[in-house]
């Protein structure tokens, strides 16, 4: 009997799962009560001077508003910008790098090539560790993993002393060929621990044991650079949550779109650097799956930049080399491309009378002219206001108001210089902003080898819905899907994410029947690491292992990741692996070479521990024309038209209407161009289709 009562009580007891994502201006909350399916969201301004304080404020506010007891919070998932801000602001820990003597410039030379290669002023970023804190240790491993020179421990001792004297808080140890054999790094780490136990040490092969010395070293450096701040932040967060009586141990979102616990986050810091953008894509792919969409282009537009990502067959795409400020990150990350064009991008007329947009941005301060915070130059947002798409309701939860007159004045100045009507000028600004994004998205699509006409665009963030439909038209896309709460997609992404740990071994061997046993063995080792990792995360349920290989034709210098079926390994079917590679190569690059020798560079394994299965309520669809809240005048590109304005709250599943139209909601405004058919689905997503 007791047992039954407990079960009933448990069922009646609220079960809150909370996702929190910190962005540049706002901290977003997405909370789900698992029994009832009740969903709540909240945005609070960030407190950069005291990271974490706004989080507790928001949690308290949320608990009050939704009437729940923090003791009923069974899951708390957090994405934070502490790590990435540390790098962008260059406020990380002073570090020393121990590397091989003769190769001390590995991080300054990087891969030599630099962007902006037509400029005689081009340069690489200053390394995070200055050259006088790089110590060349006499030590050498051969490419086959045999030692040609053991570490000179006397040199290590001298280097530790100098590093300490110069204020190093931590040491990164990165030696050549540690991807093959990490014993030299390990022995030097042990020596440092003995000589200077107060210094933290990260070895390159521990952080990410992949071939290519610059990439491996810089990954370890990024990890060490943010370590003290991230670790301090997480410790404080754990204490604050505990103090509030929250039983859930905090989980963190990772750049790979998965989760890890806070304990791991304190030392595997590099894994969370891109967590915000990654969990946005995870949230988007979850929403897409729920809506039955499997090929998505996400679009998140902020004040200064726009982020894009592809979701193919329902899955986010992964890549390495994503930029953290000025530095590429070489661990697997959800691929997100970024361009410096956003709502705050400034329009100008150049010396030849040509209208341009960006690269300068009014950012969030002073912001667009229409915000009335001192911005005077015309921005993309001002152009939206002048055309009439924006400015009919409160923005950003009432924290912003729009002054149409200021926008008119700013755009009007450019219009006068161009000798054009102000609306036409505003429209031209929007066209240019969209074409800037077009370039980036086209590049993304060509790298991925996909045809965007088969994709649905999903705009989110505060600015995505503003320009999303216009970009979709430019790209020839036929569908746009706007989630009900575009402002908290990243927070939602954390809520629905799985535990995910990535493991890698560099093999560098030809793919053949004879190399298969070694490959199988490597996978077995990785699987064991994966199992151990999941257990350490507190996960004892079923685990899924995703296997893949990075392969290339001999002579190529870029490898591509190919998903493997475990049976191919078990059956020793090298031909099936080769076929999968040929097929992927064909898909990505329009050709393959059936006689080419294949080189297997890395084997990879992702250990996935599924999170709670969550589902949001579905509402029955009742087809009916939507009733507009009011009518307004908008310049739609050719002339001023009177169009409908809808309030998102009143749009019930099954509501239909057509563009041009404006949909307003508390955190964003959706501009819907002419020709679009709009409808609301059972999950309250707003769908646009453009019939050809």
């Amino acid at each position, binding site marked *: 009997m007791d047992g039954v009562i407990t079960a009933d009580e448990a069922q009646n007891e609220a079960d809150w799962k909370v996702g929190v994502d910190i962005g540049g201006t706002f901290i977003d909350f997405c909370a789900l009560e698992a029994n009832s399916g009740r969903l709540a969201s909240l945005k609070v301004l960030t407190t950069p001077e005291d990271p974490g304080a706004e989080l507790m404020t928001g949690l308290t506010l949320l608990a009050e508003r939704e009437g729940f007891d923090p003791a009923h919070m069974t899951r708390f998932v957090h994405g934070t910008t502490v790590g990435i801000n540390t790098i962008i602001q260059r406020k990380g820990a002073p570090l020393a790098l121990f590397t091989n003597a003769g*190769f001390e*410039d590995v991080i300054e030379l990087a891969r030599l090539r630099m962007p902006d290669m037509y400029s005689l002023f081009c340069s690489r970023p200053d390394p995070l560790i200055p050259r006088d804190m790089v110590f060349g240790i006499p030590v050498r491993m051969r490419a086959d993993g045999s030692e040609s020179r053991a570490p000179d421990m006397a040199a290590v001792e001298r280097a530790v002393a100098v590093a300490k004297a110069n204020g190093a808080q931590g040491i990164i140890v990165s030696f050549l060929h540690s991807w093959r054999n990490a014993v030299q790094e390990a022995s030097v780490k042990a020596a440092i621990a003995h000589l200077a136990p107060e210094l933290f040490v990260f070895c390159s092969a521990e952080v990410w044991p992949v071939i290519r010395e610059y990439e491996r070293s810089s990954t370890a450096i990024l990890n060490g650079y943010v370590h003290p701040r991230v670790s301090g932040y997480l410790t404080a967060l754990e204490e604050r949550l505990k103090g509030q009586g929250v039983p859930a141990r905090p989980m963190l979102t990772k750049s790979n779109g998965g989760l890890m616990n806070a304990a791991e986050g304190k030392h595997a810091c590099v894994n969370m650097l891109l967590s915000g953008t990654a969990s946005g894509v995870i949230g988007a792919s979850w929403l897409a799956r729920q809506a039955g969409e499997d090929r998505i282009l996400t679009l998140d537009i902020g004040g200064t930049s726009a982020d894009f990502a592809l979701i193919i067959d329902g899955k986010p795409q992964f890549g390495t080399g994503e930029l953290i400020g000025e530095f590429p990150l070489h661990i697997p990350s959800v691929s997100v491309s970024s361009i410096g064009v956003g709502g705050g991008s400034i329009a100008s007329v150049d010396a030849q009378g040509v209208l341009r947009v960006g690269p300068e941005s009014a950012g969030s301060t002073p912001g667009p002219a229409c915000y009335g915070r001192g911005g005077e130059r015309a921005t993309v947002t001002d152009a939206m206001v002048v055309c009439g798409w924006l400015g009919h309701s409160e923005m950003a939860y009432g924290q912003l108001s729009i002054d149409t007159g200021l926008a008119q004045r700013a755009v009007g100045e450019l219009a006068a210089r161009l000798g054009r009507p102000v609306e036409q000028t505003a429209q031209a600004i929007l066209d240019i902003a969209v074409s800037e994004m*077009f370039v980036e998205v086209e590049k993304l699509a060509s790298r991925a080898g996909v045809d965007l006409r088969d994709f649905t665009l999903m705009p989110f963030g505060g600015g995505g819905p503003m320009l999303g439909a216009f970009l979709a038209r430019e790209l020839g896309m036929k569908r746009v899907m706007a989630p009900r709460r575009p402002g908290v997609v990243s927070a939602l992404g954390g809520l629905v994410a799985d535990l995910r740990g990535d493991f890698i071994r560099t093999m560098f061997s030809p793919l053949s029947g004879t190399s298969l046993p070694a490959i199988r063995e490597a996978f077995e080792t990785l699987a064991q690491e994966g199992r151990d990792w999941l257990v350490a995360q507190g996960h004892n349920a079923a685990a899924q292992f995703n296997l893949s290989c990075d392969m290339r034709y001999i002579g190529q210098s870029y490898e591509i990741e190919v998903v493997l079926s475990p049976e191919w390994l078990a059956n020793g079917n090298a031909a099936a692996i080769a076929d999968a590679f040929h097929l992927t190569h064909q898909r990505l690059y329009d050709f393959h070479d059936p006689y080419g020798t294949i080189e297997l560079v890395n084997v990879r394994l992702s250990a996935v521990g599924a999170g709670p299965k969550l589902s949001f309520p579905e509402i029955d669809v009742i087809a009916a024309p939507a009733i507009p809240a009011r009518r307004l005048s908008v310049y739609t590109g050719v002339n001023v038209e009177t169009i409908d304005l809808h309030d998102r709250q009143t749009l019930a599943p099954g509501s239909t209407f057509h563009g041009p139209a404006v949909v307003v909601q508390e955190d964003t405004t959706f501009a819907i161009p002419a020709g679009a058919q709009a409808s609301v689905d059972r999950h309250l997503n707003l769908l646009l289709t453009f019939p050809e």
Partner: protein
Amino acid sequence: MPLFDRTKLQVLANHARAAAENMAHTLHRTAHSAFVKETQDFTVMLMDRSGATFAVPMELGATWYPGLSYRCAIAMVDDYRPGDVAFTNDPYSGHVATHAPDTHLWKPVFVDDEIVAWTGGHIHNTDMGGAVPASLSRALTEIHQEGIRFPPMKLVNEGVFDEMILRIMSTNVRKPDLNIGDIKALVGALNTGERKIQAMVRKFGKAGFVEGVAALLDHAEAQAHDVLRSMPDGTWQFADYADEDSVEANPCRLKLRLTIKGDEAVLDFTGSDPQLGSSLNVPSGGDPRHTMLLVGVYYVLYTLNPKILLNTGLTRPFTCITPQGSVLNPVYPAAVGMRSLTCARLRSVIFGAFSQAVPERLPAAPAGNNCIVNVMTTDERTSRTVIAAVNPVVGGGGAMPHRDGTNGSGADAAYLKNTPIEITETETPVEFVRYGLARDSGGAGRWRGGLATEMAFRVFAPDSRITARNRDRSFFRPWGVLGGKAAGLSDMVVNPGTAHERRLGNIDTAVLQPGDMLEIRSAGGGGRGDPHQREPWRVAQDARRGYISPAAAERDYGVVIRGGEIDEQATNLLRAGKEPSAGHFHFGPEREVYETQWTPAAYDRLHAVLDALPIHWRFFAKTEIFRRMKGRSGPEGVQAAFDAVCERFPELPRPRPIREAAE
């Protein structure tokens, strides 16, 4: 002509760039050879109906061809149909290809049975056959030794490759799979570009597209005019030297007289050396706007206005004069394979001329030796021959008006990429001993020149052959400006610091035996401004970082460092009364000594003498004159040497006396 809507131009430019970037990504990711993938020695472009480039990628590929016109090459093929692709690698047909390994392809883009544009591009083939592997060597003397040449012809007919051409190529080159793989990848990229242009035509309309493309060219032209207008009118002269005009021979001098008048400029290269009996010639065909001649100009324009559109329109305000039979306009059958080396010097000549026009806005000389190192050795485990590209060894950028030169590479070498040591050592049986920056190699200055790169590796098999192409600056230093000093020299040494040391100077090949170590160092970037004006803390920081030695801090900068700290008193004492050096340039002692013998007037006399000879006599006569210059100098010395040459070779044609030539 209707003026294309100024508010739509950036939209069109963005679509054009998206198409070009798309092509570049397609090629880069699908190519087979390291040349295309790692060195990124390729270009792709969109061209207008006449074959003039109107868009290039900004992120991938080489930086040489935004102003390339395919017009002449296009005209050499008849009857284009949809799906056709034409190609050539012949430097003497149409002046598109500039050495035999560069294979250029172009494809018409049809809309309604009419060609509205072209897509094109080039790849550097690993080998095109001929006398030496990779088809490139300074020692070659005529184009026929540099591999098989295909004059402009169709490679793909209505979508179908001409198998005959592929078979001929496969039979004549050393790595046919790489060539054909890369060519197919480039065809894929051209197809991508074609699709994108067709989409642009749908968006902007056919007439709108054609007008818009013309407007993009006009816009770039207007931007270039504006940059020129921002410079003072005037004439500036500058000369620079490649160390050698052929293997272990005499310097090769390039001379430029730059005249800026209003918004136009003339680049007169008259007075540059006669065409060479080596492969260092630059085949411009005398085209006054050949892209090879103007690469340095692109850098100058882009540096002064980073918003400039890179297309053929940029070239319109410029006129280049390159006398026929000179190194910058050789006649058939001069070899041209190693023109990259000369092109690097050509860029530094242009930088030097513009540096005098706008000294406050441009940097000092970049290292200017984009050396590509290849190794051929035997893998002792498999007894297999391995041929691999090792790293490029390039030097730093010149010191800028506002900061130090970029270390290790930069300026006009920024597009080069290195290969990780771990990858090279895994694929190739060599062991690196060092790869990093060379101390004291950057020119001293208020702003220091970028440091050189230094690389050393060991081989394990007998008769391992190394080539280090495009090495230069082992004698003539990258110059400093406005009181800044010239940079360190490049060098190549076998077994440095041992009894078996062999200093190779500017030699670009070496044969190594087991255990031998080869050290290659590039030049550095020139310095800018008086080094005694550099803040002592920066000098001390450079010393702490190993960029300069304490001795150099004292000698070059007048900063005394004791025990890691600046000795302020000693520094002030040392710096007191130091006058900044006079003159716009600092060339270093080697050139200063050389030019006491080879004065500008001596060169004028030399060219007066040589120009009077038939082209095929000139290089021979130059070499013979140089042989007789010992103990001679100035124009009289040249004349006396020439007289001696005439005496020795009475067959030498002497059309008329030239005594009255410039003194």
